[in-house]
């Protein structure tokens, strides 16, 4: 399979802030690449460069053979983009929104109408098609936004945090719709800060942090990087969790234990399989530490992120609010433009 998206050495900074620091990344045609990283990792900047919204400072990238700088207009004819928030006109109806996008792709009026009706049906919005978008729920807006990104039957679809801010039910509904799309052979580049989302939707995952791709592989390959499985121990007396961590690390782990003192929990990557459970029980029993819960599980992508960067995916200083994050980034851009 050929590589339909190719980026080589992409750099982009906004004043003092380096958003992309040499990103090399390719996506094979017909696959889904999940770009996973915390807020501010550079995911949105990467998507904005590939969709011609932003010029790179250095490096090159192409989509479907079109260079993002030289062939921007042509490139725009073969991509679809749904950004971090639903970019739909609240004062128009759902149908009018899709028709407008169709007209701007230069479909004739009849074709634009037909396509709008088709997409509304596909995204379960037929009943609301002639209502003004202002009356839509958050989930309906996202669906309409997704529909708008498909008007031209794009060869490559870019979804930038498509489910951020949605309730769990709307999120699952949107996931199902995205899965259907991908089943039709559309290439998808998806950014997300939800580990579960990348795990569910992506064939391959690239982990991005501080403007660089720090790991790439299937969800399973990334999980193997953690070193097999993760041991989870909860102690009955929370005050003794540190002591427990020391004991467990000494006998059974491979790597540093992570301690959640508040929950009285510790996690530790291990390669030794189920036999390790017996060792843990013996060791902690000998030390007089009572166990309230013990488990061996497959690592989540959260563990992966921790293993790769030494910290969790969610950074507490950056709240989960894309609008604010985006505005802050805008402000930085303003300063750099001034």
């Amino acid at each position: 399979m050929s590589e339909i998206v190719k980026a080589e050495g992409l750099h982009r900074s906004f004043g003092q802030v380096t958003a992309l620091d040499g990103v090399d990344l390719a996506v094979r045609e017909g696959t889904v690449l999940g770009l996973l990283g915390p807020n501010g990792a550079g995911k949105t900047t990467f998507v904005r460069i590939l969709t011609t919204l932003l010029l790179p400072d250095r490096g090159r990238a192409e989509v479907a053979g079109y260079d993002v700088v030289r062939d921007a207009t042509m490139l725009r004819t073969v991509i679809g983009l749904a950004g971090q928030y639903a970019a739909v006109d609240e004062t128009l109806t759902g149908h009018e929104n899709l028709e407008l996008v169709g007209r701007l792709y230069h479909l004739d009026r009849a074709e634009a109408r037909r396509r709008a009706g088709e997409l509304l049906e596909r995204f379960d919005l037929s009943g609301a098609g002639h209502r003004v978008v202002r009356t839509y729920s958050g989930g309906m807006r996202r669906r309409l936004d997704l529909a708008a990104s498909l008007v031209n039957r794009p060869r490559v679809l870019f979804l930038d945090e498509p489910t951020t801010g949605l309730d769990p039910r709307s999120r699952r509904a949107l996931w199902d719709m995205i899965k259907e799309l991908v089943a039709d052979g559309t290439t998808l580049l998806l950014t997300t800060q939800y580990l579960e989302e990348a795990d569910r939707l992506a064939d391959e995952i690239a982990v991005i942090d501080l403007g660089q791709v720090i790991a790439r592989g299937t969800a399973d390959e990334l999980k193997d990087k953690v070193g097999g499985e993760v041991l989870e121990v909860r102690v009955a007396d929370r005050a003794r969790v540190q002591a427990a961590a020391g004991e467990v690390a000494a006998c059974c782990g491979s790597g540093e234990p992570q301690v959640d003192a508040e929950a009285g929990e510790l996690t530790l990557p291990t390669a030794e399989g189920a036999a390790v459970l017996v060792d843990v029980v013996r060791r902690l029993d000998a030390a007089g530490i009572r166990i309230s819960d013990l488990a061996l599980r497959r690592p989540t992508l959260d563990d992966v992120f921790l293993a790769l960067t030494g910290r969790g995916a969610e950074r507490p200083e950056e709240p989960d609010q894309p609008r604010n994050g985006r505005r802050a980034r805008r402000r930085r851009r303003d300063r750099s433009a001034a």
Partner: protein
Amino acid sequence: MSAAAAPARLPLSWTVRDIGAMTRRNILRYVRIPQLLVFSTIQPVMFVLLFNYVFGGALRVPGVLHYIDYLMAGIFVQTAIFGSTQTGVGLAEDLSKGMIDRFRSLPMARSAVLAGRTLGDLFRNVFVVLLMTGVAYLVGFRFHGLLGAIGALGLVLLVGFAFSWISATIGLLVRNVEAAQTAGFIWVFPLVFASSAFAPVATMPGWLQGFAKATPITTTVDAVRALSLGRPPGSELWWSLAWIAGILLVFVPFAVSRYRRVT
């Protein structure tokens, strides 16, 4: 799919179609939220009534029998200029809601977002100006001749269109709805009042007269007034057209270059 055959540069006919689609979108907004129209009409209607009935008795303006005949040219221009400040607000709103990102990711003409917005606001002004004419006729105003009326209202719409481009530039610079509202309006207010819109410049203090005489507002108001009263507009018309052309020559490229650099 026809879109797949797009050349590197869009043909002119597509640019025209894009502008048409965007203009239609912006007009639909006014149809869907009539409040936008109502608010831009209530204020000038109040001005007509208040200025005419409160000041009208006290103000004796040379050259006209009734103050309303003097006032309406000012009200028309003021309505069009105040209305044009909405152009920037609408653009800032599109920017903050991610609409501009969507448009920029489409293979549409770059100029269509701005042209569609300013043309949409031009059509809005057509509606508002006709409505104001109706109100003015109710309180005793009369155009003197059809040709003059068409010329006067045409000039009003033109100056509003030119100011829409200034407003568009401001909206793209400040990028925030509230800021666009303030920054777009704050300088327009003194500009409109320090002119011949509501009172003759000759009655103002000397230092203000110099400023008031030089602004595009005074020249346009004077030309509109002359045209609506069936008098020859003289050099004021040319000055006004020169101002309009100058504003468009500076602010159309400026706004378009700002739009291209929006990130």
